[in-house]
């Protein structure tokens, strides 16, 4: 009995939601698909707040196409299958015109089939491993050639590193990134035995042996550098152990791809000074636009909050979408997509980001040194690097390219000149 009742009650809720969607036709709906609970909540809640702030700002400017924007926030609760379910709900029940969301790769892979099936539009704001190009997704975060490769170049050229320790958490982003880096380094003449790879579980805390292994790499007189794709909490133990072992950034520099301002706020950074991170944005970037962005953010969220790279990605992505929709005169997905190519918008770090036909952005790459106050000192900034969906450094994907504008194909084999697939294979 109860079983039936509860299901009925549930369906009533959904039915009422469906009707409320009909009555609110005079707004443009923007879906926000970020986890507000569970393990990823810590990172994703910030992005939800960023989206709400951006939408509020846009509405204050008069909305879009004469209508107000309305944010539809759902909580996929860090549960990957739930991402797919919530995406379907956003597109079919709430009829949103665009979705901003996701953090982890696995959640993106979960959402992809739904977005492609229902022809939705997703803006994905986080640095990721590449090897993907969906017609329905715009990747505003960094592809490997916009973060990992420049950072490795920096290690090779600027720090003179000859021996690499690739440490990562065992999941897809570090795995693929390290794979690309390994093959890139070999291309640069680094021998097999000079690349040490290690994978640890999420939240790993026992780092003594790994740090000892890394220190021991220096025994053959080559300069050692660590490229870290260690995720989240595990960084804390790692940096603590590094500090305890007396490893300074001058001896063994560490460049991290997943440590930003937000992550550092949980750490005592005194021992980390000088270690590096590579991103497309740092809060310490000096530009008027950035000052303004930080000020609005702090005014909304509190003085002690920091800004970070995925926030900038949403900032650029959202504004590009607004401009593209204005240009197209509609929020229809196909029209907006066509208008997106070539869209330009100012970066918070100065310069402009351009949306490429492969759905990636051209953005500058920044390398920062960790400072005592938990901020980064930007010591290197490149010109805009165009994002590459399929890396040039793995033999299988070197022949692939993505061009939705001219070729209408996200996985085009330049060798055989055929389109491998137009829908993603998740």
């Amino acid at each position, binding site marked *: 009995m109860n079983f039936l009742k509860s299901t009925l009650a549930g369906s009533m809720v959904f039915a009422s939601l469906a009707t409320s969607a009909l009555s609110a036709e005079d707004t443009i709906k923007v879906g926000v698909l970020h986890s507000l609970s569970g393990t990823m909540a810590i990172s994703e809640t910030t992005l939800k707040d960023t989206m709400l702030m951006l939408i509020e700002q846009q509405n204050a400017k008069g909305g879009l196409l004469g209508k107000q924007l309305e944010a539809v926030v759902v909580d996929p609760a860090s549960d990957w299958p739930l991402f797919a379910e919530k995406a379907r709900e956003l597109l079919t029940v709430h009829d949103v015109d665009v979705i901003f969301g996701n953090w982890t790769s696995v959640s993106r892979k979960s959402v992809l089939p739904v977005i492609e099936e229902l022809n939705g539009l997703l803006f994905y704001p986080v640095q990721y491993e590449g090897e993907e190009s969906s017609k329905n997704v715009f990747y505003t975060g960094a592809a490997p050639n916009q973060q990992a490769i420049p950072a490795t170049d920096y290690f090779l050229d600027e720090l003179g590193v000859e021996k690499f320790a690739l440490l990562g958490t065992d999941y897809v982003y570090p795995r693929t990134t390290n794979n690309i880096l390994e093959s890139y380094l070999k291309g640069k003449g680094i021998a097999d035995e000079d690349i040490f790879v290690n994978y640890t579980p999420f939240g790993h805390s026992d780092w003594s042996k790994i740090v000892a292994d890394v220190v021991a790499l220096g025994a053959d007189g080559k300069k050692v550098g660590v490229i870290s794709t260690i995720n989240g909490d595990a960084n804390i133990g790692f940096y603590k152990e590094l500090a305890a*072992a007396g490893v300074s950034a001058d001896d063994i520099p560490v460049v991290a791809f997943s440590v930003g301002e937000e992550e550092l706020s949980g750490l005592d950074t005194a021992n980390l000074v000088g270690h590096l991170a590579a991103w497309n944005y740092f809060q310490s970037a000096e530009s008027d636009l950035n000052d303004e962005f930080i000020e609005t953010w702090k005014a909304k969220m509190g003085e002690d909050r920091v800004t970070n790279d995925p926030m900038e990605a949403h900032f650029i992505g959202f504004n590009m979408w607004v401009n593209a929709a204005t240009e197209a005169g509609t929020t229809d997905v196909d029209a907006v997509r066509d208008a997106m190519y070539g869209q330009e918008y100012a970066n918070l770090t100065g310069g402009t980001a351009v949306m490429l036909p492969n759905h990636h952005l051209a953005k500058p790459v920044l390398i920062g040194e960790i400072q005592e106050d938990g901020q980064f000192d930007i010591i290197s900034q490149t010109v805009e690097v165009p994002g590459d969906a399929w890396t040039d450094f793995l033999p299988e994907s070197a022949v692939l390219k993505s061009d939705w504008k001219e070729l209408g194909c996200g996985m085009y084999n330049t060798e055989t000149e055929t389109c491998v697939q137009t829908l993603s294979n998740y």
Partner: protein
Amino acid sequence: MKQLLLAALAVLLVCFSATAQETSIQPVLQEHQETILKSSRKTIGPAIDAIAASGLPQAQAVLEAWANKEMWSRESDGQFFKGEEAEDKQVRLIDFDTGDVVGAIAKSDLKQLKPNSGIRAMISTALVRFQLMDPDPAKRQDALTSIQRDPEASLLEPLRASFESETDPVLLAQKQRLERLLTIGYDTDTSARITAIDDMSGDLGVDLRATLNPLVATTRAVAPEAVPEGINVAKILSPGEDDFTEAQAYDMLVAKGLAPPRIPDDAIRNALADNISGGRVAGFPLAILDNDENRRAAYIRLAEEGLAPPFVTEEQIQASLGQHVFFDSYADRSPEVTEAAVAALRKIDTKVGLNQSLDLVLDALSLASIYFLAAIGLAITFGVMGVINMAHGEFIMMGAYTGYVVQQIIPDHTISIIVAIPLAFAVTFAAGVAMERLVIRWLYSRPLETLLATFGISIALQQLAKNIFGTQARPLTSPGWLDGALVMNDVVSISYIRIAIFVLALIFLGVFLFIMKRTRLGLETRAVTQNPRMAASMGINPGRVNMLTFGLGSGIAGVAGVAIGLYAKVTSELGSDYIVQSFMTVVVGGVGNIWGTLLGATMIGFLQKGIEWLNPSNTLAAQTYMIVFIIIFIQFRPRGIIALKGRAAGD
């Protein structure tokens, strides 16, 4: 060579100063303005050399300011100044030559020079010459660190020259050691190098190995007929032996252009595709080319027609391998030195191996003590009382958060830890007592349901912690005297925080034994555990004893939480990271016996480190195999390592 260079530089310098009578360093800086502003390690070399070789007294100050990110460039005229940040986004500029304040300028009109650590290392190397004789011992230390990081041939002479004036015995010892290392690497006299190698042999330092290894590093090469003259050959290789396969050898030949490449499958395919005519390739219809056999046949016909390069046959491969000699050669030209280095390294390697195993043992002990610490509270509640407390991990978490909160109130790390430990005990003791009174005592006869009820408490507590402290990891900083590591040599070291945890684990073991064997509470606990009714009839209040025992176990978990938080992190999931391992520690060791728990923790710690050592690239695998091993172990010793015998073992 080096002296020549120095002399040439000196001559240049004399000319320069003689003609211009220059006393300002600004022109030198201006000359290299572009490279300095570009700030790339690859191009900066000449600029640093020019400043260092300018012979001006300001050179040292300029380089130091530069390395400390205190050098600014004025955008209006490109002049360089030392700058100090002032109020209102202004920078006070100081002239390098006079030391006078030039004035304050808005930050936006200036460019701060931020040398990266690669450039900073080059600057420090340039500074070594100035700093080796510096009256300030700290600067001399800087110089030595810099030599250690980037040893260079040119530094050998200045280093030797600085011995006499050195007053600090510690620094002198360091200098002597560095001198030996530089001698091995860069001295021109072979016998001096060999003497230095002999002097140092048996030393465990990473720096010595870092000096020796490049000498004996080999490169693999191939030559037609015989090894060329003047090469210090390490080994002549024969293809097919010693991990040097014929395929590798042939690939080397191909890479050198000494042999034609083999035809891989995709080359066959491409060649076929290039030669399609009228739906056929070399007479083969396209449709049958869907297997390798037919493709090869078609390709052979193409090759016969001269449309594609022919296959390389096995005989051809053997023939070209036979015509060449493969060898490994040392980078260093002197066979005497490489021989001595190889011998020294061999000696060191055994020592290093021994020390590495010692280090692994220490790591394993440390991990074991962490598991023991996490499990000891459980050894009381589960081992002695038989209560499954799934919220045990959350008590550990509560202890860690107590430490965090105390640290927010008391900023001094030492005092805050001293306060936090008893406070964490008190908080979790109270929580444990409350839980025992409210929930567990009703469920003593239903152990499986205790498991579920305490699990309910566990998820509630975990979520509560998230609601209060957020999901972000919170810092719990250890006091300064626990920073760093006890370094026995360059191989064996263990951080003080781990030693502290080890000591804490030992203390807890002692406390546990004392309470159980020497106090009234312990006696009563054992009595109640064995037979509650009999104990009650002897005038013991079982309810009270259970309550206190449970509180004790929980309290110890809280203190463990502070320790674990210090060494790792404080998050709401801290407890659940340890709960399964803790249970397994107790179960593997044998329920009801603290020595069993100790053995269990030791076994798990050593096992995990052992597996990690076997498979260093995948820590996750180590954890997986450890659990599988434990599952299998329990199948064969279901009562653990130390099993209780007799009536006490009854269910």
